[in-house]
Protein backbone atom coordinates (compact mmCIF):
# COMPACT_ATOMS: atom_id res chain seq x y z
CA UNK A 1 0.00 0.00 0.00
CA UNK A 2 1.31 3.40 -0.96
CA UNK A 3 1.58 5.83 1.94
CA UNK A 4 2.16 9.53 1.54
CA UNK A 5 4.31 11.68 3.76
CA UNK A 6 2.21 14.52 5.13
CA UNK A 7 2.86 17.66 7.06
CA UNK A 8 1.54 17.36 10.60
CA UNK A 9 -0.06 20.66 11.55
CA UNK A 10 -0.69 19.88 15.18
CA UNK A 11 -0.85 17.26 17.87
CA UNK A 12 -2.98 17.61 20.97
CA UNK A 13 -3.14 15.21 23.89
CA UNK A 14 -6.12 14.72 26.21
CA UNK A 15 -5.10 12.09 28.71
CA UNK A 16 -4.74 8.85 26.75
CA UNK A 17 -6.30 10.37 23.66
CA UNK A 18 -4.63 12.29 20.90
CA UNK A 19 -5.78 14.47 18.02
CA UNK A 20 -3.54 14.80 15.07
CA UNK A 21 -4.05 17.20 12.17
CA UNK A 22 -2.34 17.11 8.78
CA UNK A 23 -2.64 18.87 5.46
CA UNK A 24 -4.12 16.81 2.64
CA UNK A 25 -4.39 17.84 -0.98
CA UNK A 26 -5.21 14.43 -2.43
CA UNK A 27 -8.56 12.83 -3.18
CA UNK A 28 -11.39 14.03 -0.91
CA UNK A 29 -12.44 12.04 2.17
CA UNK A 30 -15.97 10.85 2.93
CA UNK A 31 -17.44 10.53 6.43
CA UNK A 32 -16.94 6.99 7.78
CA UNK A 33 -13.87 6.32 5.68
CA UNK A 34 -10.54 5.51 7.30
CA UNK A 35 -6.85 5.90 6.54
CA UNK A 36 -3.85 3.68 7.20
CA UNK A 37 -1.16 5.52 9.13
CA UNK A 38 2.30 4.94 10.50
CA UNK A 39 5.11 7.00 11.95
CA UNK A 40 7.66 8.13 9.40
CA UNK A 41 10.43 6.82 11.60
CA UNK A 42 9.18 3.22 11.49
CA UNK A 43 8.93 2.37 7.82
CA UNK A 44 8.90 -1.40 8.23
CA UNK A 45 9.69 -3.25 11.38
CA UNK A 46 8.44 -1.74 14.61
CA UNK A 47 5.54 -1.85 14.54
CA UNK A 48 5.18 -3.94 11.42
CA UNK A 49 1.64 -3.12 10.34
CA UNK A 50 0.15 0.27 9.61
CA UNK A 51 -2.78 1.32 11.81
CA UNK A 52 -6.30 2.00 10.56
CA UNK A 53 -7.91 5.18 11.90
CA UNK A 54 -11.21 6.82 11.05
CA UNK A 55 -11.17 10.24 9.50
CA UNK A 56 -12.27 12.33 12.46
CA UNK A 57 -12.73 15.51 10.48
CA UNK A 58 -11.94 16.91 7.06
CA UNK A 59 -12.60 20.39 5.76
CA UNK A 60 -11.24 19.97 2.26
CA UNK A 61 -7.69 20.80 3.29
CA UNK A 62 -6.97 19.46 6.72
CA UNK A 63 -7.61 15.95 7.99
CA UNK A 64 -7.78 15.17 11.68
CA UNK A 65 -7.48 11.81 13.38
CA UNK A 66 -8.64 11.08 16.90
CA UNK A 67 -7.18 8.09 18.65
CA UNK A 68 -6.54 6.45 21.93
CA UNK A 69 -2.97 5.47 22.80
CA UNK A 70 -3.13 1.73 23.33
CA UNK A 71 -0.07 -0.05 22.00
CA UNK A 72 3.15 0.34 20.04
CA UNK A 73 1.62 1.92 16.96
CA UNK A 74 -0.52 4.59 18.55
CA UNK A 75 2.23 5.37 21.06
CA UNK A 76 4.52 6.21 18.16
CA UNK A 77 1.87 8.25 16.41
CA UNK A 78 1.27 10.29 19.51
CA UNK A 79 4.92 11.14 20.01
CA UNK A 80 5.59 14.77 19.29
CA UNK A 81 8.52 14.35 17.00
CA UNK A 82 7.26 11.62 14.69
CA UNK A 83 6.57 12.44 11.07
CA UNK A 84 3.52 10.86 9.48
CA UNK A 85 2.78 8.53 6.56
CA UNK A 86 -0.86 8.19 5.54
CA UNK A 87 -2.85 6.41 2.84
CA UNK A 88 -5.53 7.92 0.67
CA UNK A 89 -9.04 7.64 2.16
CA UNK A 90 -10.13 4.00 2.21
CA UNK A 91 -13.34 2.02 2.33
CA UNK A 92 -16.99 2.96 2.21
CA UNK A 93 -18.45 5.46 4.61
CA UNK A 94 -21.97 6.46 5.61
CA UNK A 95 -24.58 6.83 2.86
CA UNK A 96 -27.70 9.04 2.82
CA UNK A 97 -30.90 9.28 0.92
CA UNK A 98 -31.69 12.76 2.30
CA UNK A 99 -34.30 11.65 4.83
CA UNK A 100 -34.17 13.38 8.18
CA UNK A 101 -33.71 13.71 11.12
CA UNK A 102 -30.76 11.40 11.69
CA UNK A 103 -29.42 10.23 15.05
CA UNK A 104 -25.65 9.91 15.43
CA UNK A 105 -24.83 7.56 18.26
CA UNK A 106 -21.32 7.03 19.54
CA UNK A 107 -19.16 6.03 22.43
CA UNK A 108 -15.58 5.98 23.62
CA UNK A 109 -12.94 6.90 21.09
CA UNK A 110 -15.19 5.51 18.37
CA UNK A 111 -17.13 8.77 18.32
CA UNK A 112 -14.33 9.85 16.00
CA UNK A 113 -16.03 9.65 12.58
CA UNK A 114 -19.23 11.31 13.80
CA UNK A 115 -17.60 14.73 13.84
CA UNK A 116 -16.94 14.63 10.12
CA UNK A 117 -20.35 13.05 9.54
CA UNK A 118 -22.06 15.85 11.42
CA UNK A 119 -20.15 18.40 9.36
CA UNK A 120 -21.28 16.71 6.14
CA UNK A 121 -24.90 16.54 7.29
CA UNK A 122 -24.78 20.22 8.18
CA UNK A 123 -23.45 21.02 4.73
CA UNK A 124 -26.30 19.05 3.17
CA UNK A 125 -28.77 20.69 5.56
CA UNK A 126 -29.83 17.38 7.08
CA UNK A 127 -31.12 17.70 10.64
CA UNK A 128 -29.46 15.42 13.15
CA UNK A 129 -28.94 14.85 16.86
CA UNK A 130 -25.76 13.50 18.44
CA UNK A 131 -25.66 11.20 21.47
CA UNK A 132 -22.27 10.32 22.84
CA UNK A 133 -21.37 8.00 25.67
CA UNK A 134 -18.46 9.05 27.82
CA UNK A 135 -17.16 5.96 29.61
CA UNK A 136 -16.09 6.30 33.23
CA UNK A 137 -12.60 5.19 32.20
CA UNK A 138 -12.13 8.28 30.00
CA UNK A 139 -9.84 10.93 31.45
CA UNK A 140 -11.33 14.26 32.49
CA UNK A 141 -9.19 15.87 29.80
CA UNK A 142 -10.81 13.74 27.11
CA UNK A 143 -14.30 14.22 28.54
CA UNK A 144 -13.77 17.99 28.59
CA UNK A 145 -12.47 17.99 25.06
CA UNK A 146 -15.43 15.92 23.89
CA UNK A 147 -17.91 18.39 25.32
CA UNK A 148 -16.10 21.27 23.66
CA UNK A 149 -15.63 19.46 20.40
CA UNK A 150 -19.21 18.24 20.08
CA UNK A 151 -21.02 21.27 21.56
CA UNK A 152 -24.46 20.17 20.33
CA UNK A 153 -24.16 16.59 21.42
CA UNK A 154 -25.96 14.97 24.33
CA UNK A 155 -23.11 13.55 26.43
CA UNK A 156 -23.97 10.53 28.51
CA UNK A 157 -21.53 9.51 31.22
CA UNK A 158 -21.62 5.75 31.55
CA UNK A 159 -20.22 3.13 33.81
CA UNK A 160 -17.50 2.21 31.34
CA UNK A 161 -16.86 -1.23 32.75
CA UNK A 162 -19.97 -2.59 31.09
CA UNK A 163 -19.94 -0.10 28.23
CA UNK A 164 -23.56 0.31 29.41
CA UNK A 165 -25.14 0.25 25.97
CA UNK A 166 -28.59 0.79 27.35
CA UNK A 167 -27.72 4.17 28.69
CA UNK A 168 -27.13 5.93 25.41
CA UNK A 169 -29.99 4.15 23.76
CA UNK A 170 -32.39 4.98 26.54
CA UNK A 171 -31.49 8.65 26.16
CA UNK A 172 -32.21 8.33 22.51
CA UNK A 173 -35.68 7.07 23.44
CA UNK A 174 -38.04 6.15 20.65
CA UNK A 175 -36.02 5.30 17.55
CA UNK A 176 -38.93 5.98 15.26
CA UNK A 177 -38.45 9.70 15.78
CA UNK A 178 -35.49 9.34 13.44
CA UNK A 179 -35.26 8.50 9.77
CA UNK A 180 -31.94 6.74 10.30
CA UNK A 181 -29.29 5.92 12.90
CA UNK A 182 -25.54 6.17 12.37
CA UNK A 183 -23.57 4.45 15.08
CA UNK A 184 -19.89 4.28 15.94
CA UNK A 185 -19.09 2.88 19.35
CA UNK A 186 -17.85 -0.13 21.25
CA UNK A 187 -18.96 -3.48 19.88
CA UNK A 188 -21.60 -3.95 22.58
CA UNK A 189 -23.22 -0.64 21.72
CA UNK A 190 -23.23 -1.46 18.02
CA UNK A 191 -24.70 -4.88 18.71
CA UNK A 192 -27.40 -3.25 20.78
CA UNK A 193 -28.22 -0.68 18.07
CA UNK A 194 -28.52 -3.49 15.57
CA UNK A 195 -30.78 -5.40 17.95
CA UNK A 196 -33.17 -2.68 18.97
CA UNK A 197 -33.24 -0.13 16.17
CA UNK A 198 -36.59 0.09 14.46
CA UNK A 199 -35.25 2.36 11.72
CA UNK A 200 -32.42 1.79 9.20
CA UNK A 201 -29.12 1.87 11.04
CA UNK A 202 -25.55 2.06 9.78
CA UNK A 203 -22.73 0.71 11.89
CA UNK A 204 -19.09 1.82 11.63
CA UNK A 205 -17.31 -1.49 12.26
CA UNK A 206 -13.68 -2.18 12.95
CA UNK A 207 -11.73 -5.34 12.45
CA UNK A 208 -8.05 -6.28 12.60
CA UNK A 209 -6.44 -5.22 9.34
CA UNK A 210 -3.19 -5.96 7.58
CA UNK A 211 -3.31 -4.91 3.91
CA UNK A 212 -6.32 -2.55 3.87
CA UNK A 213 -6.75 -3.10 0.14
CA UNK A 214 -8.75 -6.31 0.06
CA UNK A 215 -5.76 -8.59 -0.44
CA UNK A 216 -5.33 -10.42 2.85
CA UNK A 217 -8.92 -11.26 3.80
CA UNK A 218 -7.96 -10.40 7.35
CA UNK A 219 -10.71 -7.94 8.21
CA UNK A 220 -13.60 -10.38 7.96
CA UNK A 221 -17.09 -9.14 8.81
CA UNK A 222 -19.91 -11.69 8.80
CA UNK A 223 -22.78 -10.49 6.60
CA UNK A 224 -26.02 -11.84 5.25
CA UNK A 225 -25.91 -11.64 1.48
CA UNK A 226 -28.58 -13.20 -0.69
CA UNK A 227 -29.73 -15.28 2.24
CA UNK A 228 -26.27 -16.73 2.88
CA UNK A 229 -23.82 -15.97 5.65
CA UNK A 230 -20.56 -14.77 4.12
CA UNK A 231 -17.44 -13.02 5.30
CA UNK A 232 -16.81 -9.73 3.59
CA UNK A 233 -13.81 -7.45 3.93
CA UNK A 234 -14.29 -4.38 6.10
CA UNK A 235 -11.46 -2.53 4.38
CA UNK A 236 -13.06 -2.41 0.94
CA UNK A 237 -16.73 -3.16 1.54
CA UNK A 238 -16.91 -1.32 4.87
CA UNK A 239 -16.08 -0.15 7.44
CA UNK A 240 -19.65 1.18 7.48
CA UNK A 241 -22.35 -1.46 6.98
CA UNK A 242 -26.11 -1.54 7.13
CA UNK A 243 -27.04 -3.01 10.50
CA UNK A 244 -29.51 -5.41 8.92
CA UNK A 245 -26.86 -7.12 6.80
CA UNK A 246 -24.38 -7.58 9.67
CA UNK A 247 -24.71 -11.06 11.19
CA UNK A 248 -23.15 -10.02 14.46
CA UNK A 249 -20.73 -7.42 15.73
CA UNK A 250 -17.36 -8.99 16.56
CA UNK A 251 -15.55 -7.94 19.69
CA UNK A 252 -12.16 -8.35 17.98
CA UNK A 253 -12.74 -4.83 16.64
CA UNK A 254 -12.64 -3.29 20.11
Amino acid at each position, binding site marked *: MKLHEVKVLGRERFGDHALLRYRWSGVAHEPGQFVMVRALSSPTLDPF*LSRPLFVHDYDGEVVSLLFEVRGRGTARLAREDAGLLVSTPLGRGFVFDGKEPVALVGGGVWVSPLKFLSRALNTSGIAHDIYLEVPATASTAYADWLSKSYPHAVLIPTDGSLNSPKTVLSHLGDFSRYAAICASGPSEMLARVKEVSTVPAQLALRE*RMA*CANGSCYGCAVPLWREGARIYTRACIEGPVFGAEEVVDVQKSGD
Partner: protein
Amino acid sequence: MSFGWAYYGLFTMASEHLEFVESSALAVELCGIPLATPLIPAAGTLAREALEDVRGVYGAMLPKTVTPAPRSGNPPPRVAEAASGMVNSIGLQNPGLERFLEDLEHYDIGAPLFVSVAADTVGEFAAMCERLVGEERVAAVELNLSCPNVEHGGLQFCAGPSAVREVVSVCRGALAGKPMFVKLTSERVVANAVAAEEAGAHALTLINTVPALVVDARARGVFLRGGLSGPAIKPVALRAVYEVSKVVEVPLIGVGGVAGGTDVAEFMLAGATAVQVGSGSFVREPQVVLEEFAAYLREQGVFARDLTGALAGY
Protein backbone atom coordinates in the same frame (compact mmCIF):
# COMPACT_ATOMS: atom_id res chain seq x y z
CA MET B 1 29.29 -14.22 -14.01
CA SER B 2 28.71 -10.49 -13.89
CA PHE B 3 28.49 -7.68 -16.41
CA GLY B 4 29.26 -4.04 -15.85
CA TRP B 5 26.12 -2.01 -15.56
CA ALA B 6 27.03 0.02 -18.61
CA TYR B 7 26.18 -3.10 -20.55
CA TYR B 8 22.51 -2.46 -19.97
CA GLY B 9 22.47 0.51 -22.25
CA LEU B 10 20.06 3.16 -21.08
CA PHE B 11 18.66 2.46 -17.66
CA THR B 12 16.46 5.14 -16.25
CA MET B 13 14.42 5.06 -13.14
CA ALA B 14 11.29 7.16 -13.54
CA SER B 15 9.51 8.31 -10.43
CA GLU B 16 6.57 6.03 -11.05
CA HIS B 17 7.82 3.27 -13.33
CA LEU B 18 10.97 1.47 -14.20
CA GLU B 19 11.99 1.73 -17.79
CA PHE B 20 14.61 -0.55 -19.15
CA VAL B 21 15.86 -0.08 -22.66
CA GLU B 22 17.70 -3.31 -22.00
CA SER B 23 15.13 -4.88 -19.73
CA SER B 24 16.90 -8.19 -19.49
CA ALA B 25 18.65 -6.98 -16.35
CA LEU B 26 15.59 -7.98 -14.34
CA ALA B 27 14.30 -10.87 -16.45
CA VAL B 28 14.49 -14.46 -15.29
CA GLU B 29 13.19 -17.75 -16.59
CA LEU B 30 11.26 -20.13 -14.40
CA CYS B 31 10.54 -23.64 -15.71
CA GLY B 32 10.79 -22.29 -19.23
CA ILE B 33 8.41 -19.42 -18.51
CA PRO B 34 10.01 -16.02 -19.11
CA LEU B 35 9.32 -13.53 -16.30
CA ALA B 36 9.99 -9.84 -16.83
CA THR B 37 11.01 -9.54 -13.19
CA PRO B 38 11.79 -12.20 -10.57
CA LEU B 39 9.03 -10.91 -8.28
CA ILE B 40 5.77 -12.79 -7.85
CA PRO B 41 3.04 -12.06 -5.30
CA ALA B 42 2.92 -14.71 -2.56
CA ALA B 43 -0.31 -16.70 -2.66
CA GLY B 44 -3.00 -15.07 -0.55
CA THR B 45 -1.45 -11.63 -0.37
CA LEU B 46 -2.65 -9.89 -3.54
CA ALA B 47 -6.32 -9.72 -4.43
CA ARG B 48 -7.80 -8.81 -7.78
CA GLU B 49 -9.10 -5.60 -6.23
CA ALA B 50 -5.52 -4.41 -5.72
CA LEU B 51 -3.84 -4.99 -9.07
CA GLU B 52 -3.70 -1.37 -10.17
CA ASP B 53 -0.18 -0.58 -9.02
CA VAL B 54 1.54 -3.88 -9.70
CA ARG B 55 1.55 -4.03 -13.49
CA GLY B 56 5.14 -4.22 -14.64
CA VAL B 57 6.29 -4.94 -11.10
CA TYR B 58 5.46 -8.60 -10.83
CA GLY B 59 6.83 -11.05 -13.36
CA ALA B 60 3.81 -13.29 -12.85
CA MET B 61 0.46 -13.18 -11.09
CA LEU B 62 -0.42 -15.70 -8.39
CA PRO B 63 -3.85 -15.37 -6.79
CA LYS B 64 -4.90 -16.71 -3.39
CA THR B 65 -5.11 -20.50 -3.06
CA VAL B 66 -8.25 -21.96 -4.61
CA THR B 67 -10.02 -25.07 -3.32
CA PRO B 68 -12.46 -27.34 -5.19
CA ALA B 69 -15.52 -25.91 -3.41
CA PRO B 70 -16.01 -22.38 -2.05
CA ARG B 71 -14.75 -21.78 1.50
CA SER B 72 -16.05 -19.08 3.80
CA GLY B 73 -12.90 -18.91 5.91
CA ASN B 74 -12.33 -18.59 9.66
CA PRO B 75 -14.14 -16.29 12.09
CA PRO B 76 -12.31 -13.13 13.11
CA PRO B 77 -9.82 -12.25 14.41
CA ARG B 78 -7.82 -13.48 11.44
CA VAL B 79 -4.70 -11.35 11.64
CA ALA B 80 -2.49 -10.15 14.46
CA GLU B 81 0.71 -8.25 14.60
CA ALA B 82 3.94 -9.85 15.79
CA ALA B 83 7.50 -8.54 16.22
CA SER B 84 8.65 -7.72 12.66
CA GLY B 85 5.79 -9.68 11.20
CA MET B 86 2.23 -10.84 11.49
CA VAL B 87 0.23 -13.97 12.17
CA ASN B 88 -2.73 -14.94 10.03
CA SER B 89 -5.42 -17.54 10.08
CA ILE B 90 -7.65 -16.76 7.13
CA GLY B 91 -8.88 -20.27 6.53
CA LEU B 92 -8.48 -20.27 2.76
CA GLN B 93 -11.55 -18.13 2.08
CA ASN B 94 -12.08 -18.48 -1.67
CA PRO B 95 -14.88 -18.78 -4.21
CA GLY B 96 -14.04 -22.34 -5.28
CA LEU B 97 -12.34 -23.44 -8.48
CA GLU B 98 -15.25 -23.08 -10.94
CA ARG B 99 -16.20 -19.58 -9.90
CA PHE B 100 -12.53 -18.63 -9.79
CA LEU B 101 -12.05 -19.79 -13.38
CA GLU B 102 -15.09 -17.84 -14.54
CA ASP B 103 -13.45 -14.68 -13.20
CA LEU B 104 -9.97 -15.48 -14.47
CA GLU B 105 -9.71 -12.36 -16.64
CA HIS B 106 -9.71 -10.22 -13.48
CA TYR B 107 -6.24 -11.47 -12.68
CA ASP B 108 -4.64 -10.19 -15.84
CA ILE B 109 -1.63 -8.00 -15.10
CA GLY B 110 -0.01 -8.58 -18.45
CA ALA B 111 2.16 -11.37 -17.08
CA PRO B 112 1.94 -15.15 -16.83
CA LEU B 113 -0.75 -16.40 -14.45
CA PHE B 114 0.05 -19.08 -11.88
CA VAL B 115 -2.69 -20.71 -9.84
CA SER B 116 -2.30 -21.97 -6.27
CA VAL B 117 -4.47 -24.94 -5.33
CA ALA B 118 -5.28 -26.83 -2.15
CA ALA B 119 -7.68 -29.64 -1.33
CA ASP B 120 -8.71 -32.03 1.42
CA THR B 121 -7.64 -35.23 -0.31
CA VAL B 122 -5.14 -36.41 -2.87
CA GLY B 123 -8.04 -37.21 -5.19
CA GLU B 124 -9.37 -33.67 -4.98
CA PHE B 125 -5.89 -32.28 -5.65
CA ALA B 126 -5.72 -34.44 -8.76
CA ALA B 127 -9.18 -33.40 -9.92
CA MET B 128 -8.22 -29.72 -9.66
CA CYS B 129 -5.08 -30.34 -11.66
CA GLU B 130 -7.08 -32.14 -14.31
CA ARG B 131 -9.44 -29.20 -14.51
CA LEU B 132 -6.51 -26.78 -14.86
CA VAL B 133 -4.36 -28.70 -17.32
CA GLY B 134 -6.44 -27.60 -20.31
CA GLU B 135 -6.78 -24.01 -19.14
CA GLU B 136 -4.36 -22.21 -21.41
CA ARG B 137 -4.40 -18.98 -19.46
CA VAL B 138 -2.85 -20.81 -16.53
CA ALA B 139 0.91 -21.00 -17.06
CA ALA B 140 1.69 -23.06 -13.97
CA VAL B 141 0.07 -24.57 -10.90
CA GLU B 142 1.38 -24.21 -7.36
CA LEU B 143 0.40 -26.96 -4.95
CA ASN B 144 -0.16 -25.50 -1.49
CA LEU B 145 0.67 -28.49 0.71
CA SER B 146 0.27 -26.63 4.02
CA CYS B 147 -3.30 -27.73 4.37
CA PRO B 148 -4.73 -30.64 6.32
CA ASN B 149 -5.15 -33.98 4.60
CA VAL B 150 -8.50 -35.19 5.87
CA GLU B 151 -7.69 -38.76 4.90
CA HIS B 152 -4.65 -38.69 7.20
CA GLY B 153 -6.18 -37.44 10.40
CA GLY B 154 -5.70 -33.81 9.51
CA LEU B 155 -1.91 -33.98 9.23
CA GLN B 156 -0.70 -31.55 6.61
CA PHE B 157 0.15 -32.83 3.14
CA CYS B 158 3.67 -31.60 3.79
CA ALA B 159 3.97 -33.32 7.17
CA GLY B 160 6.58 -35.69 5.80
CA PRO B 161 8.22 -37.05 2.66
CA SER B 162 5.86 -39.94 2.01
CA ALA B 163 2.76 -37.74 2.10
CA VAL B 164 4.50 -35.21 -0.15
CA ARG B 165 5.56 -37.88 -2.60
CA GLU B 166 2.04 -39.21 -2.94
CA VAL B 167 0.22 -35.97 -3.64
CA VAL B 168 2.95 -34.58 -5.88
CA SER B 169 3.21 -37.64 -8.09
CA VAL B 170 -0.54 -37.84 -8.55
CA CYS B 171 -0.73 -34.14 -9.47
CA ARG B 172 2.25 -34.50 -11.77
CA GLY B 173 0.32 -37.14 -13.69
CA ALA B 174 -2.83 -35.03 -13.80
CA LEU B 175 -1.02 -31.93 -15.03
CA ALA B 176 0.53 -33.78 -17.96
CA GLY B 177 3.59 -31.59 -18.22
CA LYS B 178 2.15 -28.22 -17.24
CA PRO B 179 4.68 -26.64 -14.88
CA MET B 180 3.95 -27.55 -11.29
CA PHE B 181 5.43 -25.76 -8.28
CA VAL B 182 5.23 -27.43 -4.89
CA LYS B 183 5.01 -25.12 -1.90
CA LEU B 184 6.42 -26.39 1.39
CA THR B 185 6.83 -25.16 4.95
CA SER B 186 10.12 -24.94 6.82
CA GLU B 187 9.39 -28.07 8.87
CA ARG B 188 11.34 -31.05 7.49
CA VAL B 189 11.92 -28.98 4.39
CA VAL B 190 14.98 -30.79 3.07
CA ALA B 191 13.43 -34.25 3.21
CA ASN B 192 10.16 -32.95 1.78
CA ALA B 193 11.93 -31.09 -0.99
CA VAL B 194 13.80 -34.18 -2.08
CA ALA B 195 10.56 -36.15 -2.07
CA ALA B 196 8.77 -33.48 -4.09
CA GLU B 197 11.53 -33.38 -6.67
CA GLU B 198 11.61 -37.15 -6.99
CA ALA B 199 7.84 -37.16 -7.42
CA GLY B 200 8.07 -34.74 -10.32
CA ALA B 201 7.86 -31.18 -9.03
CA HIS B 202 9.12 -28.69 -11.63
CA ALA B 203 9.94 -26.09 -8.99
CA LEU B 204 9.66 -25.70 -5.22
CA THR B 205 8.23 -22.70 -3.43
CA LEU B 206 9.83 -22.19 0.00
CA ILE B 207 8.34 -21.36 2.53
CA ASN B 208 4.79 -21.04 3.75
CA THR B 209 4.05 -19.35 7.08
CA VAL B 210 5.54 -20.78 10.28
CA PRO B 211 3.05 -22.16 12.86
CA ALA B 212 2.57 -19.52 15.54
CA LEU B 213 0.42 -18.41 18.44
CA VAL B 214 -0.50 -14.94 19.62
CA VAL B 215 -1.61 -14.68 23.25
CA ASP B 216 -3.47 -11.74 24.72
CA ALA B 217 -1.97 -11.50 28.20
CA ARG B 218 -4.50 -8.97 29.50
CA ALA B 219 -7.50 -10.96 28.32
CA ARG B 220 -5.66 -14.14 29.30
CA GLY B 221 -6.79 -15.68 26.07
CA VAL B 222 -5.50 -17.09 22.83
CA PHE B 223 -5.79 -14.25 20.40
CA LEU B 224 -4.81 -16.15 17.26
CA ARG B 225 -3.43 -19.53 16.26
CA GLY B 226 -2.04 -19.22 12.76
CA GLY B 227 1.02 -18.75 10.63
CA LEU B 228 3.83 -16.26 11.10
CA SER B 229 5.03 -14.27 8.10
CA GLY B 230 7.05 -11.13 7.44
CA PRO B 231 10.67 -10.08 8.08
CA ALA B 232 10.71 -12.13 11.31
CA ILE B 233 10.86 -15.35 9.25
CA LYS B 234 13.27 -14.17 6.56
CA PRO B 235 16.33 -15.88 8.08
CA VAL B 236 14.31 -19.12 8.38
CA ALA B 237 13.14 -18.93 4.77
CA LEU B 238 16.64 -18.11 3.51
CA ARG B 239 17.99 -21.11 5.37
CA ALA B 240 15.34 -23.36 3.78
CA VAL B 241 16.18 -22.11 0.29
CA TYR B 242 19.90 -22.49 0.91
CA GLU B 243 19.76 -26.03 2.31
CA VAL B 244 17.32 -27.23 -0.31
CA SER B 245 19.34 -25.70 -3.15
CA LYS B 246 22.18 -28.00 -2.20
CA VAL B 247 20.16 -31.17 -2.62
CA VAL B 248 17.74 -30.57 -5.51
CA GLU B 249 18.14 -29.59 -9.17
CA VAL B 250 14.77 -27.95 -9.79
CA PRO B 251 14.43 -24.17 -9.53
CA LEU B 252 13.39 -22.66 -6.21
CA ILE B 253 11.01 -19.81 -5.53
CA GLY B 254 11.95 -18.03 -2.31
CA VAL B 255 9.33 -16.52 -0.04
CA GLY B 256 9.31 -15.20 3.51
CA GLY B 257 9.85 -11.70 4.80
CA VAL B 258 10.78 -9.88 1.62
CA ALA B 259 10.26 -6.17 2.23
CA GLY B 260 13.07 -4.57 0.27
CA GLY B 261 15.38 -4.91 -2.71
CA THR B 262 18.27 -6.53 -0.89
CA ASP B 263 15.92 -9.16 0.52
CA VAL B 264 15.19 -10.20 -3.07
CA ALA B 265 18.92 -10.43 -3.76
CA GLU B 266 19.49 -12.48 -0.60
CA PHE B 267 16.94 -15.07 -1.67
CA MET B 268 18.37 -15.32 -5.16
CA LEU B 269 21.91 -15.62 -3.82
CA ALA B 270 20.75 -18.36 -1.46
CA GLY B 271 19.46 -20.27 -4.48
CA ALA B 272 16.12 -18.90 -5.63
CA THR B 273 15.25 -18.28 -9.28
CA ALA B 274 12.25 -16.12 -8.43
CA VAL B 275 11.04 -14.48 -5.24
CA GLN B 276 7.56 -13.98 -3.82
CA VAL B 277 6.49 -10.96 -1.82
CA GLY B 278 3.76 -11.47 0.77
CA SER B 279 3.21 -9.53 3.98
CA GLY B 280 5.97 -7.14 3.00
CA SER B 281 3.66 -5.79 0.31
CA PHE B 282 1.24 -4.70 3.05
CA VAL B 283 3.78 -2.29 4.45
CA ARG B 284 5.89 -1.35 1.45
CA GLU B 285 4.98 -0.94 -2.20
CA PRO B 286 6.14 -3.85 -4.38
CA GLN B 287 7.10 -1.15 -6.87
CA VAL B 288 9.62 0.24 -4.41
CA VAL B 289 10.96 -3.23 -3.66
CA LEU B 290 11.59 -3.73 -7.38
CA GLU B 291 13.23 -0.33 -7.71
CA GLU B 292 15.55 -1.11 -4.83
CA PHE B 293 16.38 -4.48 -6.34
CA ALA B 294 17.17 -2.85 -9.69
CA ALA B 295 19.40 -0.36 -7.92
CA TYR B 296 21.19 -3.23 -6.23
CA LEU B 297 21.76 -4.96 -9.57
CA ARG B 298 23.12 -1.75 -11.01
CA GLU B 299 25.41 -1.17 -8.05
CA GLN B 300 26.71 -4.74 -8.21
CA GLY B 301 26.85 -4.76 -12.01
CA VAL B 302 25.00 -8.04 -12.37
CA PHE B 303 21.89 -9.38 -14.04
CA ALA B 304 19.15 -10.80 -11.84
CA ARG B 305 19.51 -14.25 -13.37
CA ASP B 306 23.19 -14.36 -12.48
CA LEU B 307 22.47 -14.06 -8.79
CA THR B 308 20.81 -17.45 -8.36
CA GLY B 309 23.00 -19.49 -6.01
CA ALA B 310 25.99 -17.18 -6.55
CA LEU B 311 26.90 -17.23 -2.90
CA ALA B 312 30.40 -17.35 -1.51
CA GLY B 313 31.26 -18.40 2.03
CA TYR B 314 32.11 -15.52 4.32
